[in-house]
């Protein structure tokens, strides 16, 4: 009998939070529809920069294009962070990659897993040469008018202590959790505090120095660049080629078979081979 999972508690998170901005306001909910939705509402009401919303469960956790994010109670991390400081346009499109880098670093701090990123912001655990999705990130930019800029809501879902049998059968080959990969449970409060710390540092750095260093760090963590890939666009259109590099806004430069270079800004990436 291992007992019930330890619930998240602000008192257990705060002492580990060494951040300047992120998590200064930290809200913990038992259940919400979506942490991004809750935080977007708070942003419209003027919530401060760095506000964080965490939930034990989500009833309508979201992925890209209205896909759902599996959000069972008490097992994983569902967190949204408000970045309300106005970032320059050439930096703001890097936000999803910046968040992925923070997740990457947090997991590497707490585990010895081989973690890699798939463009733009999927976090994969590599085992036996195969990458399985550990975490997903969805970023919503909510307009607050041309003079006050745009606030960015970064939503992060990390599969932490979810056992394999809690995943639907169709996801078991492609998704995973820290528990499955490491064989032991991970303290969610500690993971959250570490994640927010990494994000705080990257956010501060990007705000003052622009995206160049983020790009350099991202390239090291990202497995996509240099690989043969297939891009699945909306509808059923697919393009194959080699991921050649990144454009200045973070778009993926794809060298197609007939020698053209395309810049991809939306689509699902499949690593071939």
């Amino acid at each position, binding site marked *: 009998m291992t007992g019930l999972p330890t619930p998240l508690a602000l008192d257990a998170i705060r002492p580990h939070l060494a951040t300047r901005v992120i998590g200064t306001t930290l809200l913990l909910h038992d259940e919400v529809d979506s942490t991004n939705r809750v935080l977007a509402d708070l942003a419209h009401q003027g919530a401060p920069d760095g506000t964080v919303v965490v939930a034990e469960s989500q009833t309508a956790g979201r992925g*890209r*294009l209205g896909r759902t994010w599996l959000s069972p109670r008490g097992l994983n991390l569902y967190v949204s962070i408000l970045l309300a400081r106005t970032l320059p346009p050439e930096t703001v499109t890097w936000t*999803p990659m910046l968040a992925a880098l923070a997740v990457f670093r947090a997991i590497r701090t707490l585990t010895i897993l081989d973690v890699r990123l798939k463009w733009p912001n999927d976090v994969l655990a590599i085992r036996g040469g195969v990458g399985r999705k550990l975490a997903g*990130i969805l970023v919503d*930019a909510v307009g607050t008018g*041309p*003079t006050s800029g745009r606030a960015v809501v970064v939503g992060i879902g990390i599969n932490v202590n979810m056992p394999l049998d809690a995943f639907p059968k169709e996801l078991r080959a492609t998704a995973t959790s820290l528990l499955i990969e490491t064989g032991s449970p991970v303290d969610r409060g500690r993971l959250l505090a570490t994640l927010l710390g990494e994000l705080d540092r990257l956010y501060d750095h990007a705000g003052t120095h622009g995206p160049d260093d983020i790009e350099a760090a991202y390239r090291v963590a990202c497995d996509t660049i240099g690989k043969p890939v297939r891009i699945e666009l909306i509808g059923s259109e697919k393009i194959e080629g080699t991921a050649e590099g990144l454009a200045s*806004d973070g*778009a993926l430069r794809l060298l197609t078979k007939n020698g053209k270079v395309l810049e991809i*800004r939306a689509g699902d990436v499949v690593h071939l081979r």
Partner: protein
Amino acid sequence: MKRHPAKSARKPATAQPKPRPDALVDPALLQDLIAVFQNAGVSDLEVERNGLRIRLRREGAAASSPALEVSVPVPAAGLTAAPTDAPTAEPSTEGLVTVRSPIVGTFYRSASPYSEVYVEEGTYVKKGQVLCIVEAMKLMNEIESDADGRVAKILVENAKPVEYGEPLFLIAPGAQPEG
């Protein structure tokens, strides 16, 4: 400040009306707008607020400083046009507010392929209401209306790429008719 010759040549046509005391331009707001304009690398920026319309426009690619036009439309004249005397390839935007894409990305008319579109042509919208999403690198940008009014024209097809500053919607300002 460099001045573009074309600007002074048509100065009389854009003579600035005397600001009304209740609609004076806040210098701080103006400063902010100019900063946003210069950093954004767009060629045309129009902001309407409490009946005051401010338009910043870059004349030619070489111009290093924005041309500035401030106009205060008479209230109740719902279709007061911002001064536009340069011929343009875009559809006639006389009296219409253009909503542009703030980033390079992919344009979506709905939150997901399975949900309803945010707006159709003819839909009455409120300022701040979401009109569409532009996605770049999983950054989903909700694009909001800059004005109360009717969606006069949707300029881009669903799931198509859009450029920085590309016009997405034309809004005809004005309240929804009763009934």
